[in-house]
């Protein structure tokens, strides 16, 4: 049996409940006001009729939806492949940068140069260089433009993720490595079983954030030619002389990103909570 709270506590509970009801009512009222103002403002604008026709035309939307969806499937596949490879590449580069000793100097220098230059280089330029530069060499067995574009995205994001992983590795206190080594674990074993698991856990939120950014940026592959959602929309726009296909593609990208963003938020919240719990 739960005991009856004191009158003071009952007062407190009643007061808090009153405040909560008030907050909900206030939020509802202000949302209604803002919504009305926006609707009236936009639909009342002099150019609204034209904009509605050329950006939000339902017929055009329905007509090009199948092609755009088909293109989006390519974006999804690219996202999965590029995200996986970029994580592996980033982790590898981050680990290479931690190696000490003169033997590893060239490896370290190369890894550092890579992260510095690729983070500064706009992704569009990397895609152009890969997709149009490499075939220009006329080498035997040059892969398809699609794969070259994917490679461009992977190496660019690999550089970002390498920095994220490195921050994670450096955040693990040296005493953890000392403890692992004192048990007889080799440097590699200490990295693999003690440092990296802790590092990856700590940087999970920024890692997922970069994946959300990556999921948008895979659309840039359309610049190299492959028909993804954006390219399909572009074709639709050219054919129908109407911008609606872009809006359709945009909405689809947002829908695609929502689950990933939700997961990111959840992981970030959980990490913050754990930090506050002091572990």
């Amino acid at each position, binding site marked *: 049996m739960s005991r009856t709270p004191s009158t003071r506590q009952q007062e407190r509970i009643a007061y808090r409940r009153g405040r909560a009801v008030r907050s909900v009512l206030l939020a509802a009222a202000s949302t209604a006001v803002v919504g009305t103002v926006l609707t009236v403002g936009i639909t009342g604008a002099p150019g609204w009729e034209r904009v509605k026709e050329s950006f939000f035309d339902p017929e055009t939307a329905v007509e090009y939806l199948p092609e755009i969806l088909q293109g989006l499937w390519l974006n999804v596949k690219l996202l999965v492949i590029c995200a996986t490879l970029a994580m592996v590449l980033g982790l590898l580069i981050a680990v290479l940068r931690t190696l000490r000793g003169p033997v590893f100097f060239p490896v370290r220098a190369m890894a550092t140069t890579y992260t510095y230059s690729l983070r500064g280089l706009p992704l569009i330029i990397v895609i152009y260089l890969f997709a149009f530069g490499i075939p220009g060499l006329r080498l035997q067995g040059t892969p398809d433009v699609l794969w070259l574009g994917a490679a461009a995205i992977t190496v660019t994001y690999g550089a970002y993720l390498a920095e994220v992983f490195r921050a994670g590795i450096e955040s693990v206190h040296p*005493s*953890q490595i*000392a*403890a*692992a*080594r*004192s*048990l*007889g*674990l*080799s440097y590699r*074993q200490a990295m693999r*079983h*003690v440092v990296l*698991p*802790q590092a990856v*856990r700590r940087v999970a939120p920024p890692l997922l954030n970069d994946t959300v950014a990556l999921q948008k940026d895979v659309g840039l592959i359309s610049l190299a030619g492959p028909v993804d959602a954006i390219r399909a929309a572009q074709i639709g726009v050219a054919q129908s002389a109407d911008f609606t296909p872009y809006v359709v593609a945009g909405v689809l990208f947002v829908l695609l990103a929502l689950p990933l963003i939700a997961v990111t938020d959840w992981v970030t919240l959980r990490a913050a909570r754990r930090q506050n719990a*002091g*572990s």
Partner: protein
Amino acid sequence: MLLAIDKVRKVFGDHVILDDLSLDVAEHEVVALIGASGSGKSTLLRCVNLLTEVDDGTIHLDGEEITDPRADPDLVRRRIGLVFQSYNLFPHMTVLENIMLAPVRVHRRSSDQARAQAMQWLDRVGLAEKAGAYPDRLSGGQQQRAAIVRALVNSPRLLLLDEVTSALDPELVGEVLTMIRELKSDGMTMVLATHEMGFAKQVADRVAFLDGGRVLEQGPPEQVLGDPVEPRTRQFLARIIEAGRL
């Protein structure tokens, strides 16, 4: 001699921490290192465990020189257990996983075998029901006992303990001391750095006072702690008594 430290020197910058320090430890012997903060106790233990490289001198373990640059440090460390003041358990592993890590990864035992051995130890030190818990759910004393077990499952020839009680509340110190006393009666060879003179008196066969980078005075606890020869030792002990730690 199980451990022979001979004229070991360690310099950080232009700070001489260990200055031709020599110390021998016989099998089954327990030696307590005492000395002011910064006198080099931790540094000496880290040198023995090869976590820090000596700048001169030699260290022999079972007659084999471990400071030889050709010796494999990983192999040496398997024979020496080291427990830190701050436990340093791995926070992403349960207590059991912490303890099983080295037996499985380093000694290549089967995980069934490693688990059985780990549980036997945990049982013995009263931590069996904490096997599946993560370190942050344990009290300081429980964490420290788990850390000692983690070093013990490697069956080390020598156990190094660096101020294993100084991060603990006084009520928790007792359970760790009991465990160390039991290890002593098992015949474990130990070198322990400590600020607790009472602890040194109870478990050590010999107390070594570090000062100016050397072992200034050593002998049975009653003599070194009760009737020291060197004026520096007297001064140190006087300060400790003032601080109420004897």
